[in-house]
């Protein structure tokens, strides 16, 4: 599996990263080197192995489904780069 310029462009779009045209080629090369290196995992036959789903053998706790926090509009919005009256402000998204 080899990554070309167009793949980098597509992945950068998926990742919401503006990526200058002139750097696509170099990044494709870097990604290919890393992907070629991880290819060695294919040396191992894992057909009978379950993928890890939990790092430590434990089951997740259940808790009562109730509101435990909230009503803090100032704390929630105070770090926003742009906002008004405890709302986040974004460029217009609906005409």
């Amino acid at each position, binding site marked *: 599996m080899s990554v070309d310029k167009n793949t980098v462009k597509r992945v950068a779009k998926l*990742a919401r*990263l503006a990526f200058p045209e002139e750097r696509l080629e170099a990044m494709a090369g870097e*990604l290919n080197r890393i992907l070629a290196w991880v290819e060695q*995992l294919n040396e191992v036959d894992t057909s009978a192995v379950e993928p890890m789903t939990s790092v*430590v053998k*434990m089951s997740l706790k259940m808790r009562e489904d109730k509101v435990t926090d909230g009503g803090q509009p100032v704390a929630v919005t105070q770090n*926003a*780069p742009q906002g008004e009256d405890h709302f986040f402000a974004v*460029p*217009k998204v609906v005409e």
Partner: protein
Amino acid sequence: MSDLTGLTIVEARDGLRKKSFSARELADAHIKAIEKGRALNAFVTETPDLARKMALESDRRIASGEARPLEGLPLGIKDLFCTKGVLTTAGSHILDGFKPPYESTVTRNLWDAGAVMLGKLNMDEFAMGSSNETSYYGPVTNPWRRKGANTKLVPGGSSGGSAASVAARMVLGATGTDTGGSIRQPAAVTGIAGIKPTYGRCSRWGIVAFASSLDQAGPMARTVRDCAIMLKTMASHDPLDSTSVDMRVPDYELAMTGEVRGLRVGIPKEYRLDGMPGEIETLWQKGIAWLRDAGAEIVDVSLPHTKYALPAYYIVAPAEASSNLARYDGVRFGLRVPGKDITSMYENTRAAGFGREVQRRILIGTYVLSAGYYDAYYIKAQKLRSLIARDFDEAFEKVDVLLTPTAPGPAFGIGEKTDDPISMYLNDVFTVTVNLAGLPGLSVPAGLNDEGLPLGLQLIGKAFDEGTLFRVGEVIEKAAGPTSRPQAWWEV
């Protein structure tokens, strides 16, 4: 009294209790050391006013007999931990100006126990790096230099500011986080101790997320015992982190009996790499001899899937990171770069806010999770992870603890490895297996190489058996002899 910054946590704790000095004096001595050590670039934010205020409260409590376990002990905090009202950057431009309205559970535990905050420590951006060179705030310099040379060396990473500030006597101890070796590798190359606890021991709540199934917080300090004291307070069950375990945190100091007779120490043969420097092999043999002389039984073991750990990690960690870092969109916090519409605002913000290494990992992560590749990469890596964990399970049927080198070499020069991502990734070759399997790993300072640079040995334990690591670690530390300290060339 003359050298308050040279004390260990144990000594400082005793001195405060005996009123040999006040918490305020201890804090002031460290504040001064931090000011004089700015050339190392270990701090992103210094908080001297807060430190003095907290120290005064500690003095009040000590005077009234209400001292808490870490009362008056001045610490540094890796800038990945959210601290209420104090700038938290994760070493990234994208978190510009972010002052969390809440406190991470680990730091909350420290302050509730009376510890004093000296400031926030520099780190690789989003903890992605092994040399502290990816920080938006510039590289950290290792206080150690090669004998007779003044080449600036890296302090390791990603907890490079933590390691440098502890080694340079600017803080008594520091918090770190470890996703693939980010506590242990910097600890090793700066001559200090550091432990990555078992996954789930410390709450991850309020720690800026990198790879959620691998991230774990831990202490870094100048002795193994100091780490044990800090971890006792940092670890807790936390309902706010569903992966934090509901298990009693033992008093680790009680486990440190100095006794290792009859203990079975495993030596995994796969950790002997081709091209590994001779000094690392020599160090490892020394460690083996120290434990054998102390009465431990040395057992050869095999961890056959070791070589697949690093490539598996470089699928799992970027995959989780690409997902975790999706939240930085210029809307709720940090940097915003305008664009012609909302999508280009997101794209411009993230392009300007993330550094090169972070962008590279986001792209890899997005690629391996994208349609058609998920099974080939992500599931394959998670299967290798199962095999790596099984290797450890089988080894721990035969032994109580494993001994390995921490890092494949000593500190290297700033800029020496930045051009080649894979050679940088190889720094974590001995540490990353532990994160993949969720196990605890402790790096113990084990002496200096011929060039006068520190090297570390790593102990790997069974899940939740940090006590054994501290016990064995202290035996190694004692056998290695008193830790020398770097000459304070950086002081102005």
